[in-house]
C-alpha cells in the first residue's frame, strides 16, 4: 500500500506545480520548494498517514492498522467507559495478532475439561446390569432400603438450612449408593457428609452391614484380641545384646585397648527399659461400639467408594492428641507426635468415629430402647461386660413417636434433642475394657485425656481407684446434659425461616465440631450431616503433647556418679582409718600393696 500512496502524493505535487505554472507563467528559482511549503490539509493528512503507516522495525506492524483494528473492536463491542480500559483493549488486539499463524498444535483436538467427568457420569447413569439369576428367593436378597436416600430431597432441606453440596455431587452420591448396595453386603446406608482436604475432599457414606457379614468378619476377631505374648522374644533379644557386649569386651582385651586398666573389665549391662507400655485395649469387633457402622469414602464425583478399616482404641486416643488436616489421599502418612498408628485412612476413620459419637442426634422420643433390652443386668457377671450403664447399646424407632413441636426443638437449652451415638470413653472404646490382668493401668495418661475429652467430660469421674471403670452418659441422653468445654456452649439452634413458621425447620449446629448439623422438619424428618474439615474446635490453639521425661539408664549409685578425686589429705585419712591390725597384715597380702604405695608417696611428699 505504501508505495501506491507515495505515487499519489508525488503526482498531486506535480499537478500543483503545473497549475502554478499555468497561472503565473513565470519561473522563479526555488518556486518548487515554495509550493510544497504552503500549508495544505490534504498534504498534511497524507504525511501523517504515511508516518502512522511506517512499519515497526521490530514487529513489522504499523500503528495505523492497529488503531483501525482497536477502534473496530471497540465500535463492535461498545463497552462502557472504554477510555478507562483503552490500553487493555489495545493490548488485547495486539496479543491476538501475535499468535503464530503456523500453530501446528492447533490441529490437535484438546478435549474440554469436563470430558473425563462426563465419561464417569455416563457410566453411572446407565441402568444397573440385571442381576444374575440366583437360587435365592428375591425376598431374601434384601437390598438396603433406598427410600430414605433421596439425595435431592435431602438437598432441598439442606438448602433451606443454609448448607448444601452442588447438585451434581448429590446426584452422584445417589446414583453411586444405588450401585453400591448391589455390590456390597449393606443392610442400611446413609449419606454421612463431606470432609474437606487440602488436595481433594472426601464424601462419606455410613453403612450397617448385614448380620452374616459381621459374623464372618468377627470369626478371626478372637485371635486378634489376644496377640501371642512375646516374652520369649524379649528374652532372646536380651541374650543377643548380652552376647554382643561380651564380644566387644573380648575384642578390646585382645587388641590391647584394655591396656589402660590392669584387669579386663566387663562392659556394663545394657540399660533396661523401665517403661512398660500400658496394655492396649482390644479393638471392638465389627458391628459393636465405635465399629458399629462401616464407612465408605470417595474423593468426588465419579470415583469409586473405598471401605475404611475398623478403628482401634489406640487410633481414637492418638487422634485426640493430634491436629492434622486431611490431604485427600488415603495413603498419605501422618507425621505427628504422638505417632499415629496408621495412615490417613485410619486417621479419617478415627475422626469419623469421634465426630459421629459427638454429633449424631435426633429429636427426643424418636428412638426408644426396646423392652427386651431393658433388663440386661445379667451380663455384668462377666468382667469384660461390667461397664455399668453401657448395657443398652441398641434402640429402635419409637412406634408411638409424637414429634415435639417446633418451639421445643428450637429451645435454646436443646433438651429436646438426644444423642444417638454411643459416647467414646477415654480408653477409646464405647464399653469399658477391664485391663485387670495387668494392674498397671496407665492412669496418668487417662487422666490427661480427660481434659481433652468429648463434650460430656464432666460425666467422667476422676479416677479415685485404679480399677474404677470409665463411664459415659448412656445413649439417648439429652444434649442439654453436655458440658460446655472452655465456656463454649456445645450447640447452637437456629430456625431456618423467620417469616413462615409453618414450614420452618429447626437447625442444630455443633460448636465443638464446626460443620456438624442436624435439621428437623417439625420433628418428622431429621438428618445428621457433617460438612467440615474433620477437626474439632479449639478454644485455644493447639499445642502438641510434651515429650515424656528422659528415662534413667542405670539406677543412681556410686558407679555412675561423678565425684571429686580424693586429695592427699583424704587419702592419708583413709589410710590411717584403715590401718591393718598388725595380725592381719600377713593374711591380707593384696591390701598391703596399695598401702605400701601410699606410704611411698607420702615419704616422697615428705622429702619434698
Amino acid at each position: 500500500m505504501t508505495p501506491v500512496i507515495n505515487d499519489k502524493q508525488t503526482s498531486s505535487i506535480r499537478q500543483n506545480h503545473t497549475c502554478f505554472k499555468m497561472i503565473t507563467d513565470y519561473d522563479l528559482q526555488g518556486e518548487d520548494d515554495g509550493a510544497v511549503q504552503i500549508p495544505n490539509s490534504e498534504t498534511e493528512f497524507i504525511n501523517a498517514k504515511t508516518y502512522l503507516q511506517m512499519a515497526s522495525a521490530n514487529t513489522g506492524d504499523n500503528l495505523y492498522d492497529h488503531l483501525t483494528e482497536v477502534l473496530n473492536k471497540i465500535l463492535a463491542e461498545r463497552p462502557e467507559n472504554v477510555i478507562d480500559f483503552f490500553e487493555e483493549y489495545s493490548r488485547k488486539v495486539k496479543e491476538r495478532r501475535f499468535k503464530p499463524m503456523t500453530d501446528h498444535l492447533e490441529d490437535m483436538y484438546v478435549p474440554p475439561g469436563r470430558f473425563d467427568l462426563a465419561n464417569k457420569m455416563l457410566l453411572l447413569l446407565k441402568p444397573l446390569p440385571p442381576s444374575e439369576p440366583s437360587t435365592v428367593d428375591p425376598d431374601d436378597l434384601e437390598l438396603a432400603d433406598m427410600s430414605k436416600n433421596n439425595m435431592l430431597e435431602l438437598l432441598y432441606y439442606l438448602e433451606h438450612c443454609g448448607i448444601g453440596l452442588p447438585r451434581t455431587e448429590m446426584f452422584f452420591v445417589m446414583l453411586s449408593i444405588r450401585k453400591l448396595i448391589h455390590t456390597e453386603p449393606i443392610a442400611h446406608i446413609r449419606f454421612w457428609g463431606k470432609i474437606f482436604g487440602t488436595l481433594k475432599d472426601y464424601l462419606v457414606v455410613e453403612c450397617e452391614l448385614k448380620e452374616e457379614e459381621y459374623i464372618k468378619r468377627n470369626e478371626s476377631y478372637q485371635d486378634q484380641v489376644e496377640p501371642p505374648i512375646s516374652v520369649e522374644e524379649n528374652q532372646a533379644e536380651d541374650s543377643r545384646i548380652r552376647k554382643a557386649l561380651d564380644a566387644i569386651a573380648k575384642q578390646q582385651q585382645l587388641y590391647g585397648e584394655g591396656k589402660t586398666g590392669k584387669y579386663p573389665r566387663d562392659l556394663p549391662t545394657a540399660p533396661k527399659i523401665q517403661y512398660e507400655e500400658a496394655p492396649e485395649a482390644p479393638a471392638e469387633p465389627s458391628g459393636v461400639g465405635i465399629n458399629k457402622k462401616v464407612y465408605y469414602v470417595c474423593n468426588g464425583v465419579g470415583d469409586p467408594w473405598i471401605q475404611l478399616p475398623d478403628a482401634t482404641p489406640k487410633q481414637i486416643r492418638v487422634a485426640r492428641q493430634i491436629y492434622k488436616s486431611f490431604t485427600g489421599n488415603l495413603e498419605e502418612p501422618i507425621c505427628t507426635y504422638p505417632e499415629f498408628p496408621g495412615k490417613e485412612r485410619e486417621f479419617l476413620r478415627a475422626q469419623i468415629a469421634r465426630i459421629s459419637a459427638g454429633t449424631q442426634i435426633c429429636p427426643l422420643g424418636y428412638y426408644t430402647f426396646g423392652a427386651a433390652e431393658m433388663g440386661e443386668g445379667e451380663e455384668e457377671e462377666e468382667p469384660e461386660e461390667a461397664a455399668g450403664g453401657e448395657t443398652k447399646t441398641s434402640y429402635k424407632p419409637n412406634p408411638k413417636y409424637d414429634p415435639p413441636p417446633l418451639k421445643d426443638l428450637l429451645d435454646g437449652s436443646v433438651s429436646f434433642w438426644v444423642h444417638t451415638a454411643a459416647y467414646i470413653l477415654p480408653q477409646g472404646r464405647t464399653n469399658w475394657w477391664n485391663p485387670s490382668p495387668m494392674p498397671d493401668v496407665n492412669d496418668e495418661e487417662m487422666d490427661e485425656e480427660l481434659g481433652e475429652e468429648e463434650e460430656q467430660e464432666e460425666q467422667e469421674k476422676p479416677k479415685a481407684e485404679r480399677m474404677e471403670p470409665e463411664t459415659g452418659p448412656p445413649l439417648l441422653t439429652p444434649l442439654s446434659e453436655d458440658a460446655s468445654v472452655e465456656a463454649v456452649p456445645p450447640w447452637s439452634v437456629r430456625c431456618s425461616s423467620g417469616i413462615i413458621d409453618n414450614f420452618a425447620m429447626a437447625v442444630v449446629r455443633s460448636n465443638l465440631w464446626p460443620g456438624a448439623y442436624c435439621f428437623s422438619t417439625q420433628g418428622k424428618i431429621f438428618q445428621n450431616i457433617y460438612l467440615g474439615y474433620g477437626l474439632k474446635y479449639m478454644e485455644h490453639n493447639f499445642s502438641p503433647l510434651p515429650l515424656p521425661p528422659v528415662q534413667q539408664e542405670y539406677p543412681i549409685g556410686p558407679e555412675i556418679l561423678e565425684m571429686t578425686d580424693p586429695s592427699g589429705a583424704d587419702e592419708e585419712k583413709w589410710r590411717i582409718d584403715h590401718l591393718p591390725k598388725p595380725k592381719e597384715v600377713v593374711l591380707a597380702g593384696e591390701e598391703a600393696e596399695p598401702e605400701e604405695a601410699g606410704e611411698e608417696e607420702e615419704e616422697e611428699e615428705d622429702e619434698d
Partner: protein
Amino acid sequence: MNLNSILKSLDSCGYFGHILSTEEGIVLHNSLLILQNENHFRQIFFWGKILGVEKDYYIAYGYSRDILYGKVYYYSRNCTDWGLLPKPTKNGLVLTPLCTSKFQGDPSLVIDVLIDKDEILIPGKRKQPELRKLKEEDRLASTVYQIMDEAGVVPRGALFRRPDGIVVENSSFEGLSTLEAREIKSFLHFRPPTRKQNSNLLTRDDFNYAMDFLDPLDIDLPEGCWIIQITPAEDMAIVKSIHWPGLLSYHFCKTPKHGFIYFGHGKKSLDAPFMLSPFCM
C-alpha cells in the same frame, strides 16, 4: 459475592458445604439492593456470615468510586436492617487476636480481654496481667478487617488501576484459563499492596502496570497455606486459606465471575504448621 450470584450460591460455594439458605438469599438479594440505593453505591457485595452463639452476623460491603480503598462495610443480624460497621479501632485491632471466646451475636456486648504479663503482641511492659474491655462491634470490625487483609482474594486481572490511581473492576476481564487458575501466582491479595510496586511487578514476566499492583498470594508463609482446588468439571477454581478456615474464594474459569464469601466463627487458626505435613509438602 456480588448481588447477582447471591441467589445462586449453591453453584459457587456449595463446594464448601455452606451456602446462603433459600430464605436468606431472597431477603439479601432485595435488602442489599435497597442498601445500595440508599448509599449510592456503584456495586454492593455480600461479604459473609460470622457465626455467633446466639445470633449470626451478616456482613456486606459496597463502594462508590474505588473498590480497593473505598469499601464501606455494613452488618446486620437479620439480613434486613443494616448498620454501618465502624472502622476498626486501634484498640480493637490489637485485642481481637487475643479473644478466644466465640461471638455472641450482640454488638453492644462488652467482653474482657486478658492480656498476659509477657504478651508480645501488645507492646509495653506490664507488671501483672491486664484486663481490657472490647465491644463486640469493634471486635467484629477488626475481625472483618483482618480477614480481608490476610485472606481476601481476587483473580489476577479482575481489578484494574486507572491512570488516576483509582482501582475499578476490569470490565474487559475475561477470566483465567484453567491452566492459569492452577497457579497460585494468578491470584492476588484483595488489599492495599504492602510491597513495593516494583517487587510486585517483577514477580511476573508478563507484568502489566494496571493489574500487577497487588500482592500475589505466593508471598505468604508457610508454603501450602493456600489451597487451590479445581472442580472436577474444571470450570471453577476454589481458593482457601488454611489460616482462615471458612473463607472461600471462587472463580469460574474463562468467565469474569469471581467472588469470595466467609462462613465461620471469625477465629484465625494458628495451627497451620501442625496441620500441614512437615516432610511431604
